[in-house]
């Protein structure tokens, strides 16, 4: 390779990498440093070791947010996967109007979570929201409530609104993956007498395993990042009942000016994400070997 080539290539790589280092990697490293400091954003950060992490473990609001994130994760790995897969298999055949159906399910993924949050306000609104309207219409007025203001329902209401978009994403990914399922495999199974359920559980589900890995990984990552929808719908309230780690981190940092503590929560989120990355790459490698 010529000297000119080398210089060109170096510049080609160094330019973008410099931006990545300055605006992604360096802030990441700084966050880790701040996570072991006490800092209000004005005076200089003071090193306090792992106190922020110890404090989190005895902070009921952190524990609440952590538990809520765990509940959220359970919904995230089940609902979009199961509903999205079922729907994809049902829509992936010559159904009258299936093109139109698909468009209806595609629309949500183009929307911002800010808009999704707004859209769901129309469902949860206490006076004329869809749920309360329907409940009143069928005579179940006792069950109406302020879904987002009620401590018992706020969290699940937020998670459902989020799942609405996430399931649409899962559906799209599964529909795309279904195009790669070899037709003759299913025909062969049908000739051998496999019924629809057997075809689904023995052939389609195993063949869609790589897609499932992607769907679940995205759901988990989006759960960890999940801030927008909480902020728009409840800001974590009432009484932190619908808070999650991302929301709690924001609250401690920008409402309470505990930047060291906020950085510690952010670092915890980052470590959780790294676990997901490692598992994902191993799974991706494994399925590549399996399916060539």
């Amino acid at each position, binding site marked *: 390779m010529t000297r000119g080539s080398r210089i*060109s*290539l170096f510049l*080609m790589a160094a330019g*973008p*990498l410099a*931006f*990545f280092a300055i*605006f992604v*990697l360096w*802030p*990441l490293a700084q*966050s880790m440093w*701040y996570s072991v400091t006490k800092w209000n954003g004005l005076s200089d950060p003071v090193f306090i070791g792992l106190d922020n992490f110890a404090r989190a473990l005895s902070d009921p609001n952190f524990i609440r947010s952590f538990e809520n994130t765990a509940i959220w994760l359970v919904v995230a790995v089940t609902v979009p996967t199961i509903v999205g897969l079922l*729907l994809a298999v049902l829509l992936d*055949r*010559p*159904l009258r109007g*299936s093109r139109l159906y698909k468009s*209806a399910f595609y*629309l949500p*993924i*183009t929307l*911002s979570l*800010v*808009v999704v949050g*707004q859209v769901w306000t*129309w469902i949860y609104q206490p006076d*004329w929201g869809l749920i309360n309207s329907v409940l009143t219409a069928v005579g179940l007025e006792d069950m109406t409530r302020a879904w987002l203001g009620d401590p018992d329902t706020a969290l699940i209401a937020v998670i459902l609104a989020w799942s609405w978009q996430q399931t649409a994403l899962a559906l*799209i*990914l599964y*529909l*795309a993956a*279904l*195009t790669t399922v070899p*037709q003759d495999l299913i*025909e062969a199974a*049908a000739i051998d007498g496999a*019924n*629809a359920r057997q075809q689904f559980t023995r052939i389609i589900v195993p063949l869609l395993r*790589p897609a499932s890995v*992607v769907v679940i990984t*995205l759901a988990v990552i989006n759960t960890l*990042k999940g*801030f*927008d929808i909480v*902020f*728009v719908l409840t800001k974590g309230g009432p009484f932190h009942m619908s808070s999650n780690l*991302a929301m709690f981190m*924001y609250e401690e*940092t920008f409402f309470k000016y505990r930047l060291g503590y*906020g*950085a510690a929560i*952010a670092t915890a*989120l*980052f470590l959780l994400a*790294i676990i997901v*990355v490692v598992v994902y*790459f191993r799974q991706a*490698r494994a399925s*590549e070997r399996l399916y060539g």
Partner: protein
Amino acid sequence: MASARGMTSNADDGRGRPLHRSFVLHGFILAMLVIYAAPIIGVILTSVMTNSEIAARGVWHIPESAALQNFADVWNDTPTPRYLVNSFMVTIPATFLSVLGGVMLGYVFSQFKFPFAELLFLVVIAGMFFPPQAMLIPLFRMFNSPMEIFGFQVLPALYDTVYPMILIHMSIGLAITTLLMRNFMSALPSGLREAAIVDGAGEWSVLFRIIVPLSLPALAVLATLQFTWIWNDFLWPLVLTRSEEAKTIMAGISALQGQYNVAWANQAAMAVIASIPTIVIFIAFQRYFIAGLTMGSVKE
């Protein structure tokens, strides 16, 4: 896309599948359609109603008069036009720059082996998974103070302008753009570069005259995805802007939500306006968009 290939049709339909089962399946699809359509229809209905009509009858009925007054009100009485301009000022350059950076990195990573190439590549694409919270506080601080290099101020504090969002989205976006461009360029016929180099071309002209024109499908995918994500982003404008002059449309919606708590009709109109660009992009480039979602996540 999975254009009606009839994957299970030969086994189910026409083989006398029990009628009740078919009912259950279609019922499921219908129920899901309602769940997906209802909130969107609710917003659209609200956006053409008057606030007094909503107060009196709620939103779940045919509007008494389909009026575009709310859109006019939002356009004239709120900073919505400014917000939209800001969103475009962030989204277009950030999309362009992140794709350009991905093209450059993708070329280097796909055509050459060098020490630590694999590791560098992994670090960059792992960026897809980093929660933005993990960069939030340092970037907030960085943009709140003037930027200095060796004690010389090279930039004023960029807080409350659109520039920090461009820099951040462009940098984080490199993860997905590099991944897709490397994969795409690896699949191009090898020897393209060698032939051009033998003819005396430099690396830059190989990349931009030969490789990039062959990569247009991948570029369309990335531009579509990046536009949508950056347009829809909320966290960075929330943290990095304060004034109406710098807010993007998503931050603006959220800010107005607090101010005009009762004006449901106006909120709905604003949500519709804010969603139009991404919906248009999606409809125009649906094929690329879906290909991107799958490629970006499936291939390692």
